[in-house]
């Protein structure tokens, strides 16, 4: 029995267990919560201040383009933030990334800080992603 699917992105390690990782950070006077679910060959990341799931974007590597592909699976298509964040995280990790971004999308400075904080966590705890 072979578990190796046609993994164009990173091929996950030997069918590990899913793990969940939470962290939070005060950014621009509010506590932002981060919730990461590590999967085989990818991860799910939720960002927000209250436990709502208002959108979901998926991104993965493309064989034909250096820019990762991304798609909004759920939520308001007029807000590009979940898509861009997922895309950037795929670019960085080469993994399939699911992102749910539950902060006001118009606040571009906040989204930059959020992204910086995720990058920091990726450096500190790469095994959690």
């Amino acid at each position, binding site marked *: 029995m072979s578990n190796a*699917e046609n993994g164009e992105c990173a091929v996950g390690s030997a069918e590990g267990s899913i793990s969940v990782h939470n962290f939070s950070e005060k950014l621009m006077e509010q506590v932002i919560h981060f919730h990461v*679910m590590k999967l085989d*060959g990818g991860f799910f990341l939720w960002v927000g201040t*209250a436990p*709502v799931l208002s959108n979901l974007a998926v991104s993965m590597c493309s064989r034909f383009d250096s820019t990762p592909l991304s798609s909004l699976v759920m939520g308001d298509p007029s807000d590009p933030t979940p898509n861009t964040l997922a895309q950037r995280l795929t670019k960085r990790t080469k993994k399939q990334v699911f992102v749910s971004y539950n902060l006001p999308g118009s606040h571009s400075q906040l989204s930059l800080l959020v992204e910086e904080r995720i990058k920091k966590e990726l450096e500190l705890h790469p095994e959690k992603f």
Partner: protein
Amino acid sequence: MHPQTLIKTKQAEKNINGISTQVVCSEFSNYIFVVLTQYGKIGTLVSVTPDSRTGDICTPMYTTKVLLGKDEALTHVCAKHLATFISQESGNRPVLVGLALKDSSIDSINSMKELIRSCQVW
């Protein structure tokens, strides 16, 4: 400082019919998110939403929608069978299910349902 966890999650792993099966349930105020996988991946994403029109007169109808992945009839059947009770028990919240199954026989699905029940976050 312990970051307070905003999203309540529970997970379990069980060998069902010889296949390692994992479940992770997460509670959101507007959704229950369930990952049920035999591949370690999210796989096909299906939303199971109760029809609000029926209200409390009778048990609601459920609409299943494949948001990501192959839109097969069996996927809808499995998702509805696995998620209806979650919605009912969580105050009619919609359920988002990630399904990546090697085995979708009825016996296995019923065992998976019990596994989901053991991860009750709602």
